[in-house]
């Protein structure tokens, strides 16, 4: 929330309380969403839905799969707020979440592909 030319700046803290952006919701529903989980608009997501401007923007930006953290950066919203917006959209069937797979120590194939790919940089 940066409004240029105003007397306040980001040091003043958020001008709009986070919960005002989430329709009063204070917690995301359902399974934990990871920052790199991919969000994609469902094909059924039509127009003329009762959406907040922020949710409409999320929907518009995830016509292709977008990681949650990039949505947050693009929308200039805290990740906690975006988690709530996205989980609400998911509950309404408007987006699908493609969950990232934990790599950790478990997936040797991906680890090897990452090493090979990084070496080529």
């Amino acid at each position: 929330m940066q409004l240029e030319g105003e007397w306040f700046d980001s040091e003043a803290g958020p001008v709009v309380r986070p919960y005002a952006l989430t329709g009063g919701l204070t917690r995301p529903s359902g399974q934990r969403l990871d920052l790199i989980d991919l969000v994609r608009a469902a094909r059924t997501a039509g127009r003329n839905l009762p959406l907040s401007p922020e949710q409409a923007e999320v929907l518009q930006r995830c016509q292709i799969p977008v990681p949650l953290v990039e949505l947050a950066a693009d929308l200039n919203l805290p990740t906690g707020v975006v988690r709530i917006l996205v989980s609400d959209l998911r509950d309404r069937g408007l987006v699908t979440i493609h969950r990232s797979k934990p790599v950790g120590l478990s997936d040797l194939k991906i680890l090897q592909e990452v090493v090979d790919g990084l070496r080529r940089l």
Partner: protein
Amino acid sequence: MAYGGYDSGAATAVTPVTVKILVAGGFGAGKTTLVGSVSEIRPLRTEETLSERSELVDSLYGVEQKSTTTVAMDFGRITIRDDLVVYLFGTPGQRRFWFMWDDLSYGALGAVVLADERRLADCFPSIDYFERNNIPFVVAVNSFGGAQHHSLETITQALSLSGRVPVIRCDARRRASSRDVLVTLAEHAIARHHEAQFA
């Protein structure tokens, strides 16, 4: 962003695998510099809201508190292939942000701990965290292109690292150097994988 090869009109396109690598270290150790030098995008900044009670409750997911502070987190991206994308997250390593690290490190490939040898103690909390949580990590001593005051052996001893944690030098401003740090980390993660198999 649009991933390469993904045509929004085609239902058959591949959904990429996304992988996380964390970049930790004290204030001014060069986290954002490293992320920026190796990322294909200028580091993006996002914020996490914390409530005043953040250390007592799992406040990461809640926004009900009126009194919120934010902690900034910079991230970058490396597209390995159309279907494999690495995200780098640089974020403060202080103990009071550990609850945030729990979320960030979930499922991560591993972590880079950036050390400034003039202020070595600044990276102790990050090392503690990754050791405790059994997350593969390497220590990269950021030389800032300047003088080296201590040998890597001395630094390794000072950090009293357990096991065979790689300790390397880097210049976080240089892409090739940052890339080498990430390669070392990924190779270390593979070595840890093999160790776990035979443990």
